[in-house]
């Protein structure tokens, strides 16, 4: 009953929107996100959006964000069963958005065609990464790679060169100095495991991952604990995603750097409106805002990359945008370069649980033995 009534109300409002633009311009005065994206990105995004809403509709939108890792956010949305306590799900892997859409837990996005068309269908070769849902249930907001963070001063102490590719994590001098989050706990870590497995094939891939297990000093509970412990110099390097707080540590004055290996997977940070949302118009307005020049500029100052070829990360010398460029190794837009992607998400999703079981058996439960090797 709920599932059918809310979307139809939603359709009704959009119909009204087409018929009477003036009436449609009023948006609701509240908006709640549920998101794995770090506060350094969500806080300014919501603040800027509130400003924009005041200017455009003269509405004071009360915004808030429920911070939750991707799996937790996904789980809560499923548990809400179409009576969501939030309006928007933002961030993570697009495959989970597809899963939610299948369960009818996402509402279709009624975005203007020009906005949707400004975003390319996909990026990367040989395996294209979709940047928007052909069915229209989610759309990408920004681009960011799943790469590596490291602590330059600790690297110096250890007497090794900064890492450039995944394989540099296997350096014997890094024994006990790698931090990682188990793929069973983090979808971004899982994706990076898949990158290795799909790059090297199963047999060699697992051997590689076991060697990494031997170098690992801590398995953290969440993926973003990795940059946190690296930033403090507790550990030297690990997998990380810039907006899942890695850049935040740079902003906080920590000595931490990010590098995206050539085969790093890139996420479009999908966004979607939850079916049954009580504030569908505010939610849609937020998404439109994020895809506007203003929204993209705001995001680019936070260490992530634009979702369309229209913009490039650029700022005055010493600005936060330039700091972001330096942090991520000089790149200004993923549309400037050839993106190599070998990660096949369909393949990864199809064997998600199998990879988890194998990790538990061959790495997690024998971690101590791997360390001794």
């Amino acid at each position: 009953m709920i599932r059918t009534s809310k979307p139809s109300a939603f359709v009704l409002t959009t119909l009204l929107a087409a018929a009477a633009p003036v009436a449609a311009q009023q948006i609701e005065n509240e908006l709640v996100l549920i998101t794995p994206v770090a506060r350094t990105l969500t806080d300014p995004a919501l603040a800027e959006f509130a400003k924009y809403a005041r200017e455009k509709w003269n509405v004071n939108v009360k915004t808030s964000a429920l911070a939750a890792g991707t799996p937790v956010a996904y789980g809560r949305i499923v548990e809400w069963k179409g009576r969501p306590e939030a309006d928007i799900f933002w961030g993570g892997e697009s495959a989970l958005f597809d899963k939610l859409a299948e369960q009818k837990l996402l509402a279709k996005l009624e975005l203007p065609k020009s906005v949707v068309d400004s975003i390319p269908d996909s990026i990367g070769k040989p395996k294209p990464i979709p940047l928007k849902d052909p069915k229209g249930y989610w759309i990408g907001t920004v681009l960011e790679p799943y790469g590596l963070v490291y602590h330059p001063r600790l690297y110096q102490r250890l007497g090794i060169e900064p890492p450039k590719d995944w394989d540099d994590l296997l350096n014997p001098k890094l024994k006990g100095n790698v931090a990682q989050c188990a793929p069973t706990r983090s979808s971004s870590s899982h994706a990076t495991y898949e990158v290795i497995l799909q790059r090297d094939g199963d047999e060699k891939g697992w051997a590689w991952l076991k060697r990494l297990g031997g170098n690992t000093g801590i398995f953290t509970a969440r993926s973003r604990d990795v940059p946190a412990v690296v930033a403090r110099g507790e550990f030297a390097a690990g997998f990380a995603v810039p907006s899942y707080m890695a850049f935040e540590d740079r902003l906080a004055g920590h000595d931490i750097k990010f590098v995206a290996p050539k085969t790093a997977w890139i996420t479009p940070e999908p966004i979607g409106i939850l079916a049954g949302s009580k504030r569908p118009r505010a939610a849609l307005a937020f998404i439109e805002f994020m895809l506007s020049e203003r929204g993209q500029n705001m995001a680019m100052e936070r260490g992530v990359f634009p979702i369309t070829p229209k913009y490039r990360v650029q700022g005055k010398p010493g600005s936060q945008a330039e700091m972001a460029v330096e942090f991520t190794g000089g790149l200004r837009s993923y549309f400037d370069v050839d993106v190599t992607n070998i990660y096949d998400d369909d393949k990864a999703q199809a064997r998600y649980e199998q990879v988890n079981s194998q990790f538990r058996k061959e790495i997690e439960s024998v971690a101590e033995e791997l360390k001794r090797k």
Partner: protein
Amino acid sequence: MAQTAAIVIRGPRTPASAMIGFGLIWAFLILFVLYPLTRIFYDAFANEAGRLTLANFHEFFTDRYYLRSLWNSLVLGVATVITTSVIGIAVAFLIIRYEFPWRNLFSYLAMLPMILPPLVGVLGFVFILGRAGTVNVLLMDWFGLQTPINFMYGMQGVLLVETLHLFPFMTLSILDSLSKVDPSLEEAAQVMGANGWRRFRDVTLPLTTPGYVSGALLVFIWTFADFVTPLVVGVQDLLAVQAYLNIVQFVDRRIFRMGIVISALLVVLAIVFVLVARHYVAIKDYSSLAYSRVERRRLGPVARWLAVGFLALLMFASLLPQAGVVLAAVGKGWSLTALPVHYTLDHFRQVSLETPRFIVNSLLYSGLAVLICLAIGVPMAWIMARTRTPGRGAMDALTTLILAIPGTAIGIAYIRAFHFPLPGIDVALTSMWIILPLVLAVRRLPYTVRSSYSSLLLVHKSMEEAAENVGAGKLITFRDITAPLVWKGILVGAIFSFIMSIQEASATLFLTLGGWEMIPFGIFTYYIAGSHSQAAALGVILIVLCAASLYVVNRVAGARVGGLFG
């Protein structure tokens, strides 16, 4: 005696109000404990299709990793009980039995480790003792140490944090019983020629056993159910950690279900522990007709300074994390140096926009939770200790269950059990903020019940019976006779409940919606978001708030009974 009580309950003198109260307590327990738990147990015994199965448990007991986690949890729990016993008992005896410089100061300081919010506490330890913590950096810079000493990352780190965090619980439990032991009993033993160890073993020890066992149980179960501390130091092969990690990753449904199964198993195990402990406490009749004014012995000069040295060292170690948290809260970009190089108030400024609401929410919800705890818990303790009412065993079993369940599991159980529109108002309980004080009260109810219960055991029934013989009803007897004698114990339980509620960040984690955030939730979201400095800043605020509440309670109690420490 037992029969008299039974007759009183069933007899014509039983006021209707007592029966209604009894009914209300049961309604509360069934609705907010039994019903959500049934949901968890159902999930543990069901497969994805909803059919009942034992396959989940078969998977657990054939999985080497899970079995290792079970073993590790047991070992860690026992180890923590041993370390906290040694420290906690020593502190309790020193404070209550001996006179030495700064005794009062130490008696307050000894409580401070307790108010260390779990997540912030372990972070504080890492700041000081981590691989890049102050101690290791000093060792490396001054003494050329090559590889940092691993204090924190491993079981040793968990044991260290749990010991220094939990010994005050042991001290408090012992203090409460010890201050009621009649010194004349010990004097009698002395006169009869039993001295030193013998007197302790034959007189003091048995008399303080109920307090000790409830303290030990509390420490054991706390350690057993704590997932935050091990997580921060990278220990995952413990049951509570497995339960939490499996539950919070929702994507792999099979692992998720194993989280529920492990939670159910934690519940079952804890029932066993509590039953064993309860049996031990319940078989003897510990009674004392009066609170005792203990004569404190002066320590000789050497012993005096040894005592001061021991306590000072202990306080220094236990207050390390607070120091670490404060430094992290004001340090900017602190890494690989002994102390922060740059200092800033930015983190406080950043959190100050949201903290006023966090503080109000924290005080309101925890305060309400304590009121619910008292309203439900004290009568429950009384029913269990004083009556033969049918069903009190079940009542006890239920509070035991609560003690045992990891907070995360309760959170999940509540979401599953209460996420439907209530008839009449068409709003789900999960959409109303009252669910937070409710879940906090339920989580902390056992502290109130247990401390009231063990206090009641020490008040002799003969006094209540005397009142009843002259015509006072149960309620009046309770108000005029029992309550004045046990209020100290009840107060201790209420403080436990309040401080634990205000620091709770596991059950509430799943239930908090925008606008309801309490301070620990704020700390957790900052931590989850990777902003350790902001988390530390909020942590400092919470520590100050708790220290202030503890101080106020200490003063209030002090005005009437000369301090919590006798």
